[in-house]
């Protein structure tokens, strides 16, 4: 199962020019727990080219959100940057397959 099959929305956005933050919203507690178990900081780092220990993951149960913050894949506006606001990287995370139940 992919991340975008278990979330209502995956949102990526710059958190300043040097960092990217990704919010994965779930519809209910069961989906949120499944996402929490299946989407690690290391997997997100691997998908977007960040070292595993550079990715910070927040489990926000009240909001049913898993949030991931990491160094931006390239500084905003530098040569080679393709997306000034960093929004479309959400699709890369949405397409990730969830890992097996254990974290």
């Amino acid at each position: 199962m992919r991340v975008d099959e278990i979330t209502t929305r995956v949102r990526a956005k710059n958190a300043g020019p040097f960092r990217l933050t990704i919010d994965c919203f779930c519809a209910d507690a069961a989906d949120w727990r499944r996402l929490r178990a299946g989407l690690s900081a290391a997997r997100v780092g691997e998908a977007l080219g960040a070292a595993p220990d550079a990715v910070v993951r927040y489990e926000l149960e009240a909001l049913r959100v898993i949030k991931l913050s990491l160094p931006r894949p390239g500084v905003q506006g530098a040569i080679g940057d393709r997306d000034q606001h960093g929004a479309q990287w959400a699709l890369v995370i949405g397409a990730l397959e969830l890992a097996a139940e254990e974290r």
Partner: protein
Amino acid sequence: MNGKPIVGSPADPAADPAADPAANPAVSASRRAGTRVLVPSGVLGLGFDRCALARGVALSPDIIAIDGGSTDSGPHYLGTATSKYSQAVIAGEWGELLDARHAAGVPLVIGSVGTCGTDNQVDALLDVTREWAERHGQPLRVATIRSEQQADALLARHADGAIQGLSASAASGEALRDALTHCTHIVALAGAEAFIEALATGADVVIAGRATDTALIAALPLARLGRDGAGARAAAAGAAAGAAWHAAKIAECGALCSTRPSSGVILVDIDREGFSVRALADQARCTPFTVSAHMLYENADPQVLVEPGGRLDVTAARYEAVDDATVRVTGSVWHDDSRYTLKLEGARPLGHQCSSLVLVREPRYVQRIEEWCALLELRIRRDIERHLKRDPDSVTLEIRRIGLDATLGALEFEHGTPVEVGILLIITAEQADTALDVARLANPWLLHLPLPDDEAMPSFAFPWSPAESVRGALHGFCLDHVVHIAHPTALLRIDSQDIGPR
């Protein structure tokens, strides 16, 4: 209002309303225990719901506060000290907010003017304000906060070890010296103390350069808690300051914390125990979800917000619906940092750019577009060497394939054959004329490059003439640092003046 401070001067011991509420007429005259802040929009230039703004004015706010900028549109604006919005739109909206300020009889505050918050953008909005004052025959006291920084002064502070990187990749040592030296513009993000000092001049209008989005909203409620000037930090810990900063963070993007983000207008009531946030447009609602979820937005840490002089922690915050449109928030806490810092932003030139776009619709070429692009790059590089007598590696060539993977590049995960492909060629060179020369020598290849086994001279579609666009100087953000300072307004220049008819 003109000349009568809404908050006391930092030098005035009677300014602490907690000590003696009657000592400050503007504070004690408030009809509420708390402070009511009207936020017309997330940013000046983006528009707002005019009925909702009028509703907000009728609700007797204590201050009207709006943000004017961000780094989010990229380094060009700080690099060139320009605004992303139309000046006509800015002048029109600012005039409407000056009208609203006049009707409400309260101060109007803006921070990060003109997208990047450089000094010239402060001056530009000051000119708009002066024209409004003359046209309406209204005298106004205007305070300005200038936060642009000179490289020399920061180099001296760097030599003293007062500039600190915020991440492992932030420049240090000689690389930081180099970055500071080469920035075209550097700004420091002013904190709430600067706005408190500006309001204490009795200003009707405060126009600030780069500042934190939250500082301009948090300033008045913090001032009324007695957090003014140099004495602010020692006293500022705790729930009351937490309420002010948290309210500011929720309201700084206007109605983005509501169900109708585009309506703009938000009202926050801030007291010592917490705050209430209300959307003012028709059908706009604030719910515990929309309000608490806003802490996620463009924020790396959803629970801790770092500000000059301290940090807001919302881990224990509680969000309760008061009615359909209003949410009450309590439980957030402010912690003072042991040292006061201002965040720095700087942009430096990275070269000059030209771009060209050609559209490939011929199916034989669409099917073999990767091969064609590889050939295109070889031809351009060969011609840079042959005709410009330059090392091709001295020029950066980017060939982006719109329709295949232009957005995600190597991270693209879906593959198929599109109907057509747009080939976007981006050239970056140290000199502007080199970038243009390369774009021109690439022109015939973009238009006519054949695959080796195809007809001699196919033609593809240029959407315009000339095919190349001169993008001008490219700038890059190069500071991810804070500077330690002894006093919250040490690197800022705060002035006030009376404008309009005497």
